[in-house]
């Protein structure tokens, strides 16, 4: 006698699990414009690569003879698979089973996925579509008791931020613990219209007198602008595409180094227009994203957090095929001055680069912190100081290109000043403690007050000081190491990426990324 009957029984149970919440619930999922968790996994992973773990975990019903009559799978599907040939762990909520709520969960499955990613040192993708693990008050009647809450698996969830790349995809309405799982990741996004995120959803909030739709309370654009998630996309397909792209820049874990890709682009490519990228008129802005696109390997710029912390641009890119973290200033947001949210964005980004050993290129044009009442109200200096701490804690190779302004504390944060100044300045560079335009009133207050014609004196002082403003004078004193032709930026950055590659050190860092 072989064990065939048991294998048949196993296959039958697996088949029942694949029905998820049943045809009616699956139809509802599709009618809502959403894929089922199994469709999502199939589309995310390399074709046919999914190896499920715990498929037959769920709630079974038996007849009097002990034969299985029905089976409702647990509402979390997980396992291993491949993305672009590299192994990953994937786990997703099944909204067709009790809306993904905790009372239909077998909590240990979620924890297992986190632990599996951690111990096998594999990237983790969370497909989030449900209330997570929090459960509902219905559990009171089932358990006939209540419990002290605990965030199940959070030891692994937190530890994973320092060990393996974690991507959180918001693919439905998520609340409570599900929301926390979405944002506790290195890269998170929500799909417009089908995805919402709340601490608590509209029915609970209505009790506060706030009658809001899901979209009004926790729509994807609200969270992308608040920086709660990194990005918003228009479709699930796009979400999977961005997940694959994000992971391609990162190592599978911190004990490895980011993988080099083939480079089709010419490392010596010099874009002619860069010589006039920065307007001579200091009041005029320019498009830093265009500059970034011109200096990195063609098509390799992967921006993250576009809607948040506008003065700072953050993304991943390749230089001669090497993955690099790229920071840039956007002069169109406060001239590139750091707001509180820009500083928070910088901190997270440096932590990400440092955790996964990505060398950093910083295209910097920072007139300082944003000033004014709102900047003080926002606690800008605290968040800015955190960004400084992240910068001085970072150990990855770092190269700065000062494209224009560098003033004050935030301007000085273009690099760690005690490390080798691997930096360049474009001829448009303009730097100091304070810009002349704003600094004269402060520094020459008494002279201006005593002057018969303060306006004329101001102009005279400004003219005098402007003579000292040339970056060549700074370079004479070797306070700026190299002034370069902007068209040489790409060749020089590719040289940096090649020099930096052997300096990258695998292993855990003292400060892993915090969500």
């Amino acid at each position: 006698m072989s064990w065939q009957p048991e294998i048949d029984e196993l296959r039958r149970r697996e088949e029942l699990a694949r029905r998820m919440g049943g045809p009616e619930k699956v139809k509802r999922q599709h009618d809502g414009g959403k894929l089922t968790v199994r469709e999502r996994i199939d589309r995310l992973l390399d074709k046919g690569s999914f190896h499920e773990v715990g498929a037959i975990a769920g709630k079974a019903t038996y007849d009097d003879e002990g034969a299985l009559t029905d089976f409702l799978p647990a509402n979390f599907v997980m396992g291993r698979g491949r993305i672009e040939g590299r192994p990953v762990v994937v786990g997703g909520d099944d909204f067709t089973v009790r809306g993904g709520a905790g009372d239909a969960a077998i909590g240990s499955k979620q924890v297992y996925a986190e632990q599996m990613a951690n111990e096998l040192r594999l990237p983790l993708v969370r497909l989030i579509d449900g209330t997570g693990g929090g459960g509902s008050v219905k559990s009171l009647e089932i358990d006939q008791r209540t419990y002290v809450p605990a965030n199940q698996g959070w030891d692994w969830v937190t530890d994973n931020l320092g060990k393996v790349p974690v991507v959180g995809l918001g693919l439905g309405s998520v609340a409570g613990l599900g929301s926390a799982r979405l944002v506790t990741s290195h890269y998170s996004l929500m799909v417009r219209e089908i995805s919402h995120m709340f601490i608590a959803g509209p029915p609970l909030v209505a009790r506060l007198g706030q009658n809001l739709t899901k979209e009004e309370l926790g729509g994807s654009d609200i969270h992308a602008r608040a920086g709660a998630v990194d990005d918003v996309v228009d479709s699930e397909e796009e979400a999977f595409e961005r997940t694959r792209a994000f992971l391609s820049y990162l190592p599978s874990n911190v004990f490895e180094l980011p993988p080099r890709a083939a480079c089709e682009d010419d490392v010596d490519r010099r874009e002619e227009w860069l010589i006039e990228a920065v307007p001579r008129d200091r009041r005029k802005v320019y498009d830093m994203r265009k500059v970034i696109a011109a200096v990195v390997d063609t098509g390799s710029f992967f921006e993250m957090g576009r809607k948040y912390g506008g003065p700072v641009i953050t993304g991943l890119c390749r230089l001669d095929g090497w993955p690099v973290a790229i920071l840039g200033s956007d002069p169109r947001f406060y001239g590139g001055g750091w707001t509180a949210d820009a500083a928070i964005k910088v901190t997270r980004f440096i932590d990400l680069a440092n955790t996964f050993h990505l060398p950093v290129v910083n295209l910097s044009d920072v007139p300082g912190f944003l000033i004014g009442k709102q900047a003080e109200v926002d606690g800008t200096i605290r968040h800015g100081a955190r960004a400084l701490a992240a910068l001085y804690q970072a150990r990855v190779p770092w190269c700065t290109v000062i494209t224009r302004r560098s003033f004050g504390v935030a301007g000085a944060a273009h690099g760690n000043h005690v490390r080798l100044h691997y930096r360049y300045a474009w001829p448009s560079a303009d730097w100091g403690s304070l810009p002349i335009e704003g600094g004269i009133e402060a520094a020459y207050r008494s002279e201006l007050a005593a002057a018969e014609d303060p306006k004329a004196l101001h102009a005279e002082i400004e003219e005098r000081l402007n003579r000292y403003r040339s970056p060549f004078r700074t370079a004479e004193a070797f306070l700026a190491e190299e002034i370069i032709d902007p068209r040489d930026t790409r060749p020089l950055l590719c040289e940096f990426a090649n020099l930096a590659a052997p300096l990258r050190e695998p292993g855990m860092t003292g400060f892993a990324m915090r969500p």
Partner: protein
Amino acid sequence: MPSKNVVSEIAGSVWKIEKKAGDTVEAEETIVILESMKMEIPIASPIAGKVASLAVTEGDMVDVDQLIAVVEG
């Protein structure tokens, strides 16, 4: 006709009005220039069309998300 609200993504003051109500605009063409951190920050039309109304005048202080203009495509 679809109309589009053009809002400011930053706080600043209105330095210059480039287009008035009734003017035609191209996509990405500047309607208003704000001043912030001593820089001129152009606020551009997201679509081609006609400026239906302007919500600011030169010298106004604007906040994040404040309506600048309405453009009809």
